[in-house]
């Protein structure tokens, strides 16, 4: 008896994580899927099954299309610019720089902040009256005008600026870790063969870094799809709903507009987008990684 308990112990210990974890992840996911096929408004209503009607409604709403378009703009710029800035800073920092530790700390600290803090700070910096505009006027650039934050077409770019500010250091840290993992002898060999530094980076180092680039893109892309706090703090989706993203759309529909069915449907769409990016990655990670190293 004692022996069988001892044998079953590991399974018993890990069981709550799998049972509760799967209930939380997959159980609630399914539940959300069910909700999205009901006519639920203020309260969940499981009696009225409407099939895919909520999804149809969703894709007929202009506001949802605005949210999708903003997500597109934000994701591409947020991931792209963070990646480029991060890579540039990492390569520069890797040139035996004095004070590297201090610089690294300065580049990365925004990542320790809440997006709400970042959003609050940038809302003040970018505000049209007393922010950047006033600063440039005081510095002598009288004609400078900067009111993106209140321009429906431009406000989403303010979100990009704040997002990049917060995340570029993160990309830098990942790339720097990747660069430090490269064997110096490869670079020495290339130098002996007469390769110039830009050539070495383009032809040798960047290809080696490809997996790092890949995982950085993956992490940033899924963060961008989930981005919610930053938009809430910086623009609250405004002006109007000009900077709505799927995450804020879902929240507004579910918790303030009393459109639970629609909110659930938009959450499912977010899930599908993240899954399309992440599942292939997880699958390859788990397959190619040897279990016992």
């Amino acid at each position: 008896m004692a022996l069988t308990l001892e044998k079953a112990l590991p399974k018993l210990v890990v069981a709550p994580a799998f049972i509760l974890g799967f209930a939380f992840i997959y159980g609630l996911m399914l539940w959300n899927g069910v909700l999205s096929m009901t006519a639920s408004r203020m309260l969940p209503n499981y009696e009225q099954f409407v099939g895919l009607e909520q999804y149809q409604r969703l894709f007929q709403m202009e506001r949802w299309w605005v949210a999708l378009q903003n997500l597109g703009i934000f994701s591409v710029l947020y991931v792209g610019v963070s990646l480029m800035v991060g890579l540039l800073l990492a390569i520069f920092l890797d040139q035996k720089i004095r004070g590297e530790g201090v610089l690294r700390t300065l580049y990365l600290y925004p990542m320790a902040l809440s997006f709400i803090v970042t959003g609050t700070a940038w809302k003040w910096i970018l505000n049209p009256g007393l922010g950047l505009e006033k600063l440039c006027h005081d510095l002598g650039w009288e004609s400078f005008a900067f009111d993106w934050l209140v321009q429906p077409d431009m406000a989403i770019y303010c979100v990009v600026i704040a997002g990049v500010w917060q995340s570029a250091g993160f990309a830098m840290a990942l790339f720097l870790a990747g660069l430090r993992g490269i064997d110096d002898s490869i670079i020495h060999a290339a130098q002996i063969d007469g390769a110039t530094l830009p050539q070495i980076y383009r032809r040798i180092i960047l290809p080696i870094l490809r997996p790092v680039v890949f995982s950085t893109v993956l992490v940033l892309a899924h963060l961008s799809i989930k981005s919610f706090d930053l938009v809430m703090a910086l623009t609250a989706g405004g002006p109007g709903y000009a900077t709505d993203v799927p995450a804020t759309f879902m929240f507004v529909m579910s918790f303030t507009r009393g459109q639970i069915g629609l909110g659930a449907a938009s959450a499912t769409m977010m899930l599908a987008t993240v899954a399309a990016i992440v599942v292939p990655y997880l699958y390859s990670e788990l397959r190619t990684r040897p279990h016992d190293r």
Partner: protein
Amino acid sequence: MTVKQLSRTLLYLVLALAALFFVAPLYVMLVTSLKDAEQIRQGNLLSLPTSINLESWGMAWSGACTGVDCRGLQPYFWNSVRMAVPAVLLSTAWGAVNGYVLSHWKFRGSELLFGLLLFGVFMPFQVVLLPMSQVLGALGLSSSIVGLVIVHCLAGVAGTTLFFRNYYTAIPKELISAARLDGAGFWRIFWRIVLPLSTPILMVTLIWQFTNIWNDFLFGVSFSGADSKPVTVGLNNMANTSSSVKSYNVDMAAAVIAALPTMLVYVLAGQYFVKGLTAGAVKG
């Protein structure tokens, strides 16, 4: 100047400019929080306060109004402490035992189950908001700090398990099997061998979880009530409150207060923070 010197100078110039870009918002927050309304109107983002004015800090902490509630950020700050401390400790301990099983006590199917759990690291939590608020309601935990602690543990366990599992995989199998031959059991090996080797990963996970949970807004805004709002929600409400006069100095002081705990952790234990950040993305 030779080409080499020129390029070195350029290198440092770019790095310094980047440092300015990252530091500037923090500088702006601090100087703005020290100005009064008049100085904010007269000066600009970068101008230093003409006199140090700590009033806005007092306001932000215990006097600023959100609607009719004029208790400042203080109650929300303590809510966050009461939420984050148990949630961080529980989710970390839970991840440690899970990681221990999944690295040294594997069983048939454990790898697959772990793979399925991993999706919890990436999933958009929007998908659990509506059902979870019903579950919390059914448990009588709506709008409570206990409810938030439970949600954070469930949302965090996939990540903490991943951290510990990856770390424990590096502990030599021989060490564990030798202890088993000597008659040590599951828990004895954990306490005597594995846990004493765990300090670095414990630090990484504790810091990672603390940063995530302290900074969380989504769960806080969805599941908290009047008496359980975390500091991020309090700050957002305060900064977005539609009162007649915008007091940016109070907002900035409040933002710094809300950021202080995670900043402090970052300054004191930055190396672990960086390891946590990279652990999720660059594996093996």
